[in-house]
């Protein structure tokens, strides 16, 4: 019995917890893979084109898988021209000796066929051990062919890292166009890799602070339509939307509870902003905070028992945690400058935030007790973190200012692998969907 290949084991260890960053393990030093701060060697893998009766289609699907895995920052896919076989075969055992010579640790072989449905099979092989890690088959409807590549990517990511994936997901954001003083701001949705753009609102009214529900078709957002700005619910499958009610003078900054049945949001009245909680389908919200300050940006812990939020009740904006029923708020941020937009990781281990300090904006994380603060990205202006469903990647927006505009970026929880997400227009306020599943 051959032991799991060491480089892959290291990758798993590194991902298994933030302890992976500390790197005091002798095993890691011996393997010369260092996961500390910016230093990390991605796992070499090979993804030949998928076998298909339509070879172009097989290449397109493999291209998406390769791009996903490369963009994760954890994998380094071998160039197709350097492969001993450019097309994979999911049906037979590969010639491991040949692949070992290319120095890859894992090999992803797939086939895909397009008919009434898209059918795909994939095997992930451990090249050093000469064994199969997973073998799976999937199907999607013919219209959403890119999804099959994302599902396969998630399977490979999961097999090689021991974590769930995040490729079969979408991102809703505020698409911004026109002159800065009068910018059109409407909601748009893309696949996490930027494909399949659709606009969700007309742009007739300002649409801000979109937030995904765990029910992946439902969004909450702030809409300036019709008098006072209020939180609206938008069903993306039907396009139907409705305001959640008329509370106070203005409602904004919504966030769904993890079960999707409740929504926490800010209510402004006479210049004071407090947090409220509404059970969907009910008329009356419950008041969660009662301060003369600005309490906003609520976000639930994944078990639904707590809410983190920002408040300037102590002067500058700081991050607090309280019970989901309100009361007993404890401040958790104590660094210089101000802290805002806390968002609880779906894994529960971290809270992402925006920090303003020294004339710069920073995206960072801290543990829910406020310890272990880590800055992941800094720029002239960055804000609005949102978590990938596996809690390992954060998306946010960054704006160089002036007549320019915001763009979406992603960075991993180790502060590595910062990347811009391609969008047709300026883009802000991303919200990452759960796995579509």
């Amino acid at each position, binding site marked *: 019995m051959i032991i799991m290949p060491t480089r892959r084991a290291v990758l798993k260890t590194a991902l298994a917890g933030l302890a992976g960053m500390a790197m005091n393990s002798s095993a890691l030093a011996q393997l010369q893979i260092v996961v500390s701060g910016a230093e990390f060697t991605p796992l070499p893998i090979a993804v030949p084109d998928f076998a298909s009766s339509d070879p172009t289609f097989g290449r397109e699907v493999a291209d998406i898988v390769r791009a996903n895995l490369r963009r994760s920052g954890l994998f380094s896919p071998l160039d197709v021209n350097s492969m001993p076989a450019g097309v994979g075969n999911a049906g037979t055992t590969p010639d491991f000796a040949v692949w070992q010579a290319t120095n890859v640790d894992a090999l992803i072989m797939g086939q895909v066929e397009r008919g009434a449905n898209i059918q795909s099979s994939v095997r992930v092989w451990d090249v050093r051990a000469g064994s199969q890690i997973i073998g799976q088959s999937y199907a999607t409807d013919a219209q959403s062919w890119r999804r099959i590549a994302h599902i396969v990517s998630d399977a490979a990511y999961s097999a090689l890292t021991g974590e769930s994936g995040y490729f079969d997901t979408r991102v809703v954001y505020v698409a911004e166009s026109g002159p800065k003083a009068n910018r059109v701001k409407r909601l748009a949705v893309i696949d996490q890799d930027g494909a399949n753009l659709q606009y969700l609102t007309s742009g007739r009214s*300002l649409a801000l602070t979109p937030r995904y529900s765990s029910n992946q078709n439902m969004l909450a957002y702030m809409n300036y339509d019709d008098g006072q700005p209020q939180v609206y619910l938008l069903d993306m499958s039907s396009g139907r939307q409705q305001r959640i009610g008329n509370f106070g*003078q203005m409602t904004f900054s919504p966030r769904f509870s993890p079960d999707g049945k409740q929504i926490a949001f800010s209510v*402004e009245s006479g210049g004071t902003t407090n947090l409220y909680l509404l059970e969907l389908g009910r008329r009356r919200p419950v008041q969660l905070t009662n301060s003369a300050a600005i309490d906003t940006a609520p976000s639930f812990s994944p078990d639904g028992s707590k809410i983190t939020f920002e408040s300037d009740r102590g002067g500058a904006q700081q991050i607090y945690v309280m019970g989901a029923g309100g009361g007993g708020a404890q401040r958790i941020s104590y660094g210089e400058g101000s802290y805002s937009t806390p968002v609880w990781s779906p894994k529960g281990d971290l809270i992402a935030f925006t920090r303003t300090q020294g004339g710069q904006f920073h995206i960072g994380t801290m543990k829910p007790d406020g310890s272990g603060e880590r800055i992941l990205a800094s720029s002239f202006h960055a804000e609005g973190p949102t978590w990938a469903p596996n809690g390992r990647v954060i998306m946010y927006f960054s704006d160089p200012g002036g007549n320019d505009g915001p763009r979406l970026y992603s960075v991993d929880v180790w502060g590595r692998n910062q990347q811009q997400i391609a969008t047709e227009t300026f883009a802000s306020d991303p919200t990452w969907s759960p796995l579509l599943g």
Partner: protein
Amino acid sequence: MRSFAPILGYARTFLMVALVVTVAACARTPGGAEGDATPGSQQEFLVTVGDRVFFETDSSVLTSVAQATLEKQAAWLKRYSQYSVFIEGHADERGTREYNIALGARRAAAVINFLVSKGVSANRLSSKSFGKERPVAICNDISCWSQNRRAVTVLN
């Protein structure tokens, strides 16, 4: 100038202030726009009273300059009671979006409270915050940010 005299004549100090403002307004308005500033018109409100006040960073406290402008607004609004009044609250772009929406509302509320304290009827007043979404000055330094931290009084 004469056309303003009947409006302002009842308060000597107010008249002096108004004249200074009017002269400044005339000087930068091409084509003798003075004639457009009919007593009680929105144009007159803009050029003789001023439609906006500015705030310090992350503050909704009314500065002495802002209070002086709002004093004039209150006097003018009490004289011309046909207008309903809409206050837009704005923030500069150096804050996060949600907070700035709330900050704009806090600024609008400060203006409303001041106008009410000076005798403008509360039921003529309404407000909306635009956060940092509608800047008027576009650049990457304080010269623009200070203009964007504003509350604008819009007449309807």
